[in-house]
């Protein structure tokens, strides 16, 4: 029922109704912002990306067909935007140059990681998750964020990523295990080993 409402709104956007777009923005801005933030790990870049996602969504409204669930369509647009951003960022700031430079928001959080004798707090948990996300491949990260932060079923994630459900299952398993190990390390105060599981 909800999907039908979104599809209807999207068709109205395609017909030129800007009010319908504002409704869609209000319904999905939190999801898109969360996705972008978890993907790039930086608030300012996430805000820019969220704007870009909605702008692209608007421009692609005429190509939308109601046979595709709106949320799947939206996250396909969002994933493409984020992947482009990551590629552009990696091109502009190669790792060899970035490492000795100014730390990113995630790195700053991670730098405050706990000492073994301290109980970790929310900020440290946030940093541990962000570090694990940063170590994942972009597709693992996209699948993980859609699953864990948006609660999307594997089938929808597969459609958003143009992948098979089996591939998505594998991506999510590896990513979840990586995060679990990173948090476990935080609790134990030891450096984790990244294995393919």
């Amino acid at each position, binding site marked *: 029922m909800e999907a039908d409402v979104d599809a209807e709104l999207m068709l109205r956007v395609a017909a*030129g109704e800007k009010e319908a*777009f504002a409704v869609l923005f209000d319904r999905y801005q939190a999801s898109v912002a969360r996705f972008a933030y978890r993907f790039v790990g930086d608030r300012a870049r996430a805000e820019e990306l969220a704007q870009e996602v909605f*702008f692209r969504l608007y421009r692609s409204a005429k190509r939308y067909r109601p046979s595709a669930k709106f949320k799947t369509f939206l996250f396909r647009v969002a994933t493409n935007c984020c992947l482009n951003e990551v590629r552009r960022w990696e091109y502009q700031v190669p790792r060899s140059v970035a490492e000795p430079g100014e730390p990113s928001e995630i790195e700053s959080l991670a730098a405050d990681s706990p000492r073994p004798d301290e109980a970790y707090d*929310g900020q440290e948990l*946030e940093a541990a998750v962000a570090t694990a996300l940063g170590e994942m491949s972009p597709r693992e990260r996209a699948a993980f964020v859609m699953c864990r932060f948006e609660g999307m079923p594997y089938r929808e994630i597969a459609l958003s990523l143009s992948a098979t459900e089996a591939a998505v299952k594998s991506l*999510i*398993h590896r990513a*979840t*295990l990586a995060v679990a190990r990173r*948090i476990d390390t935080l609790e134990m105060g030891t450096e984790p080993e990244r294995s393919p599981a």
Partner: protein
Amino acid sequence: MSCTISSELTAYLDGELPIFQLRQIEGHLANCGECRGTVQLLRRTLAQIAELPAFELSSAIRRAVLSRIDEQATGSIGSRLKALWQPQVLLPSLGLVVAAVIALVIPRGTGLQPHDVALFEVGANLELAEDYEVVGLSNLDDLEVVQHLHELEGSP
């Protein structure tokens, strides 16, 4: 993790497995301490992730997006001026301007009234505009070619 079934444990917790596989994993977990440990770790992780704070956009972002959309929908002044700078629009307009100028400066007593001259010029330029449209050109550089199309008529 040595069990082959371990790669299914996340999907098991996510409720993404068919019932026969679910039963299979439950049976395995009853006998495998290592996989039970992994399930516990994953379960705890999922609970911790759920507690992470949300990230929300500021209201300024909403305004920025909607105003950008508004601009896209209505078109900027620049893009509207650019739209006017098209041969299809310029040609008839230029024809009318030329006709008006001729009508104003032409000396009296040539036998043609300014009104007739103006009509004549408009007619000639409309014909030119029609040629232009049929040929389907898209820039002003080709205007000269269209203007001399009549010279090609009759040549083999």
